[in-house]
């Protein structure tokens, strides 16, 4: 494989990412399943880099999951998103930072739609005004929060306490990245590195000392499929797509799966558990499963945060094998403690324990 070819592609997909003053919108899945990740992002941006990131308490869902499971009409979706743009305008922000890949895809799709069908923009303005009395501007800069971490990856590298290197062997860790379909497959120019060889996570991995592993099903969907997961009868679709990815990945002996999209993180984590339960199959080395982390969790580990404050223990696949490879001295006793240090019950039947 020739790196030069990838670099050439990357040079053609360098999106502009704002430097400061972000209007932040949360992800329903990331905040529910990986709240420590969103917390890390805000903390890092505000307290480490000293950036202005504003969260308006009144912002809501984008209704994206409803839209992609076909119960929310496109006009409704556009108007809900327009409301976020209105909140942003009212608070005086022009750059939006989006914590969810599907939201990011939807925002991009809507803005592209407005470009192609200006009458839809006008209709949305009317709807929003009628419903809320609000008016909006289209953001000047739109970034997924991983774009922003990518932008500041070298700042993180400079602060690194743990590089992505196997402390025992001295070799870089093998890291699989999963970008999430809605990040750039719809609009490659809006993603760092485009759609075929996206570099948003790859750039972080390399900046932090790891090695990016390509494998045949790298571009394949995690299998969320919206209605294909939301309805129990369809979950075989979701499960099977993840299984397809992991079977293809297995020979590459990945130490970690790094994900961009909160949904993918959840599925690639939880489906490993389900497949193990159903079929007795695991995809890691020595009978273990492969930890799946968000980019915020990984950035936190690189910067030396306490893994248990990042919330990596609240995945099904536990991260201890990875922490050991990284040589991170973690405190097992601190793993299931409350904020003020009270011992909580210890959950049973987790994976990789």
């Amino acid at each position, binding site marked *: 494989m020739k790196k030069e070819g990838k670099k050439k*592609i990357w040079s053609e997909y360098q999106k502009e990412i704002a430097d400061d003053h972000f209007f932040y919108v949360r992800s329903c899945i990331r905040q529910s399943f990986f709240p420590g990740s969103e917390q890390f992002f805000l903390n890092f941006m505000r307290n480490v880099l000293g950036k202005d990131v504003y969260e308006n308490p009144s912002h809501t869902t984008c209704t994206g999951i409803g839209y992609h499971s076909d119960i929310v009409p496109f006009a409704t979706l556009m108007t809900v998103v327009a409301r976020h743009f209105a909140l942003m305008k009212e608070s005086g922000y022009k750059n939006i930072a989006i914590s969810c890949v599907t939201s990011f895809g939807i925002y991009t799709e809507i803005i592209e739609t407005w470009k192609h069908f200006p009458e839809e923009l006008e209709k949305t303005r009317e709807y929003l005004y009628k419903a809320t009395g609000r008016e909006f501007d289209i953001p000047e800069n739109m970034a997924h929060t991983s774009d922003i971490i990518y932008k500041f990856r070298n700042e993180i590298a400079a602060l690194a306490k743990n590089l992505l290197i196997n402390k025992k062997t001295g070799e870089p860790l093998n890291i699989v990245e999963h970008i999430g379909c809605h990040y750039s497959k719809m609009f490659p120019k809006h993603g760092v590195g485009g759609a*075929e060889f996206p570099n948003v996570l790859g750039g972080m991995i390399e900046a932090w000392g790891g090695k990016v592993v390509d*494998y*045949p099903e790298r571009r394949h969907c995690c299998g969320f499929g919206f209605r294909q997961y939301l309805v129990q009868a369809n979950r075989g679709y979701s499960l099977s797509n993840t299984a397809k990815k992991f079977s*293809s990945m297995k020979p*590459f002996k990945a130490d970690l799966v790094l994900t961009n999209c909160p949904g993918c993180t959840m599925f690639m984590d939880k489906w490993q558990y389900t497949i193990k339960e159903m079929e007795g199959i695991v995809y890691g080395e020595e009978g273990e499963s492969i930890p799946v982390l968000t980019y915020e969790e990984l950035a936190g580990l690189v910067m030396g945060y306490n893994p248990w404050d990042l919330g990596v223990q609240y995945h099904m696949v536990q991260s201890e094998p990875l922490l050991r490879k990284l040589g991170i001295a973690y405190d097992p006793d601190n793993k299931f403690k409350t904020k003020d240090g009270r011992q909580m019950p210890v959950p049973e039947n987790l994976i990789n324990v």
Partner: protein
Amino acid sequence: MFSMDGQIVIVGGGAAGMESAGQLARSGYHVTLIEKETITGGHVRNWYHLFPDRRDSREVIKYFDDLINHKNITLLTGLKVEGIDKHGMSFIVNTNSGTEIKADAVILSTGFDLFKSERKEEYGYGIYDNVITSADLEVMFRKGEIKLHNGVIPGKIGIIHCVGSRDEKVGNLYCSKLCCVTAVKQAMEIKEILENARVFCFYMDIRMGGALYEELYRESQEKYGINYIRGKVSEVSVNIDNKLVIKAEDTLVGRPLKMELDMLVLMAGMEMSESSKSISESAGLATGENRFFSPADHHFGSNKGNVEGVFYAGTCTAPMNITETISHARAVVSDVIGYMNNGDR
């Protein structure tokens, strides 16, 4: 009236330029033939065998070399034409050396560029070691050996048709016309060098429009056992053994298909040559949606430009094979002579 004393400048010393230069010279006209490379011959020089009769391209090159070896032809190589300005009835041809050449008529035979296959990112050309183009394969044919990046002989080779053609994603809506027959020819030549190799062509339509093409296609199936699968390859990746894994739909049975290959050959299409863009802009020459020069009339003026005194020969107007290029180049001679002899034009 210019008559035979007039100066004709031909831009581009490939098949079309050499043929028209040679024919004009033989008709008694003075011709300046300008080629940007150090030698003439254009793309023909990079090809090994030509279809449909598998003639060695060197025979064709020799024919062209002999043709332009004529006292009426001034050959200027290593000189790039940057623009053409019309002053009254004559032209100034500007070159990168600063030399200005006066002309009474200009023939543009600026040819084509091969589509840059790395632009089809999903095929990984320039990234995956054993993804090559049709042009790369011709070089291997000339050497007489087909080898993988690591020197091993490939056992299973895929060919993808329409790379950079009929594809909105790269901005080329047109068919490059020659890639299908190139695929068939190359598939057969692979089998001649590697008897045991298995070859799979992935196509959307097989366009065998030229003389003896369909026969060649049939021969490739009958004698060489080439396999044809109707489905555009959607993506290419590599597995742990560095084998290429391709995904396509076998559209005639309606199911996705996965296959491992040792080597993949991309049938790169034809695009308007980069070097003719500045010429087109400086002289106000119309180009079509396909970005090739747009002839004055598709039936009666396929050699004429929208600017009087500018003529076209060959693939600068549309994809053509060598036979068609030579015919087009001979036709331009008749138009140019008519123009040169017609006093009031």
